């Protein structure tokens, strides 16, 4: 974990409200998928608190990791300001933080499920899986409101992973929720594990589906955070195994086994 003031390399609009921002840093070579950063605008107090963002991709040049990317959706103060950043701006980040998605080289079939901006950590996960395993039988399920906010489809395809799509308005892929197309695929082809990230309602559904079909399931969750390092205790999550005490997203997560936690509204 480090605090650094680093340069913005680029800030590209992917779709209305969605951006990919690159940061220059050589401190992320051992970062793992699922880990996050806490970001603030150097020396500014509006917004006051740092905001958490998943590591979306590592940037490599000549075999060295020279930076990282975040994929974000503009929802409020910080993300709006972030969308106006340009190359050369200085951002203050702490990272890499939190645990990661545990993977195994022995998986024959993996399902990755991403809803909306929840796709952010999943591309990093997919590219790590692809380095060590044959991913041609793996599937990624992308869910979004419409074709306009469907993200990273081509990136997953390029890794050689099958992409299945559901949109709420049916403008591309199957009309409905991403969990609907997931259930159909599970019946055809039982996966070794499901990895998920997205809105709480989607994660709740994943917890149910994976339990019903006895498939291990790990998800990255979002809670409000003030510090990201275990100091504020703001990021409490209700635990199933130890109901007498809370887990903390920044310390015990953000990746949890769906059997470990209770899916109440985190935010």
């Amino acid at each position, binding site marked *: 974990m480090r605090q650094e003031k680093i340069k913005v390399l680029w800030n590209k609009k992917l779709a209305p409200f969605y951006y990919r921002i690159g940061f220059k840093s050589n401190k992320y070579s051992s970062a793992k998928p699922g880990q996050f950063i806490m970001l603030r605008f150097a020396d500014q107090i509006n917004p006051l608190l740092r905001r958490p963002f998943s590591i979306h991709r590592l940037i490599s040049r000549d075999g060295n990791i020279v930076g990282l990317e975040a994929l974000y959706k503009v929802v409020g103060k910080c993300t709006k300001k972030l969308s106006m950043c340009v190359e050369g701006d200085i951002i203050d980040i702490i990272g890499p933080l939190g645990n990661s998605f545990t993977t195994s080289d022995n998986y024959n079939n993996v399902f990755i499920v991403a809803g909306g901006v929840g796709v952010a950590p999943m591309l990093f996960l997919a590219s790590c899986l692809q380095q060590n395993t044959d991913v041609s039988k793996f599937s990624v399920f992308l869910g979004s409101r419409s074709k306009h906010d469907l993200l990273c489809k081509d990136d997953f395809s390029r890794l050689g992973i099958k992409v299945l799509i559901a949109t709420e308005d049916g403008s591309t892929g199957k009309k409905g929720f991403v969990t609907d197309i997931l259930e159909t695929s599970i019946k055809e082809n039982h996966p070794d594990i499901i990895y998920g990230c997205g809105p709480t309602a989607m994660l709740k559904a994943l917890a149910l589906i994976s339990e019903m079909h006895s498939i291990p399931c790990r998800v990255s969750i979002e809670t409000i*955070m003030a510090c990201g390092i275990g100091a504020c205790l703001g990021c409490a999550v209700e635990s199933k195994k130890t109901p007498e005490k809370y887990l903390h997203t920044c310390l015990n997560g953000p990746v949890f086994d769906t059997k470990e936690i209770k899916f109440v509204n985190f935010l």
Partner: protein
Amino acid sequence: MKKNPDLEVSIGEIKLKNPVMTASGTFGYASEFKELFELSRLGAIIVKGLSIEASKGNKPPRIVETPCGMLNAIGLENVGLEVFLQEKLPFLKTLATPTFVNIYGKDIVEYAELASRIDDIEGISGIEVNISCPNIKAGGMAFGVDPESAFNVIKAVRKSTAKTLIVKLSPNVTDITKIAKSVEEAGADAVSLINTITGMSIDIETRRPKLANITGGLSGPAIKPVALRMVWQVVQKVKIPVIGVGGIMTPEDALEFLIAGAVAVQVGTANFINPNATIDIIEGIEKFLIKNNIPKITDIIGTLDVEG
């Protein structure tokens, strides 16, 4: 080259190498920050509020950002005395910085028992008694808003320990100087102020409070002027050292408190935003003293000129 200014101050029996402490609940048990800066440079560390038994704390959401501040309703979640002594204290003992344990209880007996159980433990320099947490139902602020209850709880704690005793005061009162005077009379070695100011925030779409606890404690830059005013008022009424807390982000903020008469300061919310805030503040104070040819920090404490 000029000699570095002397930053040493005293709180009760304890000498601090500089007047910058970390505020309880914003610095965990210090080890959380060990990769981010050299912890031994701190004047003192005050750890998260401790109770005899572990405490779960309030339901989430527990935090919301507000203009220039934040509301929290953590509800004093903590690991309890035994786990603190077994798992947290050994690391703190390795640091060349005094540790103060912030304590709370649900009644006077519990406050006194916790103080007496800490009394002979090596590696704990002093106790900060929290009679001002706005986020729990039993204990906490109930003792801090009434001069007589404050006197009684501090009297009982004083009897239970010979360690340096700081009492943390609540701003959620009509006259904070009355509480300060009564805890001084009860035997406190110092007072620290302020704890958070009770507040709330509402989501207008769902018409629900943004905190599960409905209300929370406001901290950060938004509360600095209130904290500063209260410190200045209390300094004039008590003889024991006053420790300034509330919205301190920069060396300039800390200097305002020192000039108002605070002997030391605590940095809270700023630790979340800039984990190096305490170090920046220590270095900034030092630079200020050098620039103004002030040899000792104590030469600036309480030098507010109200005559003009």
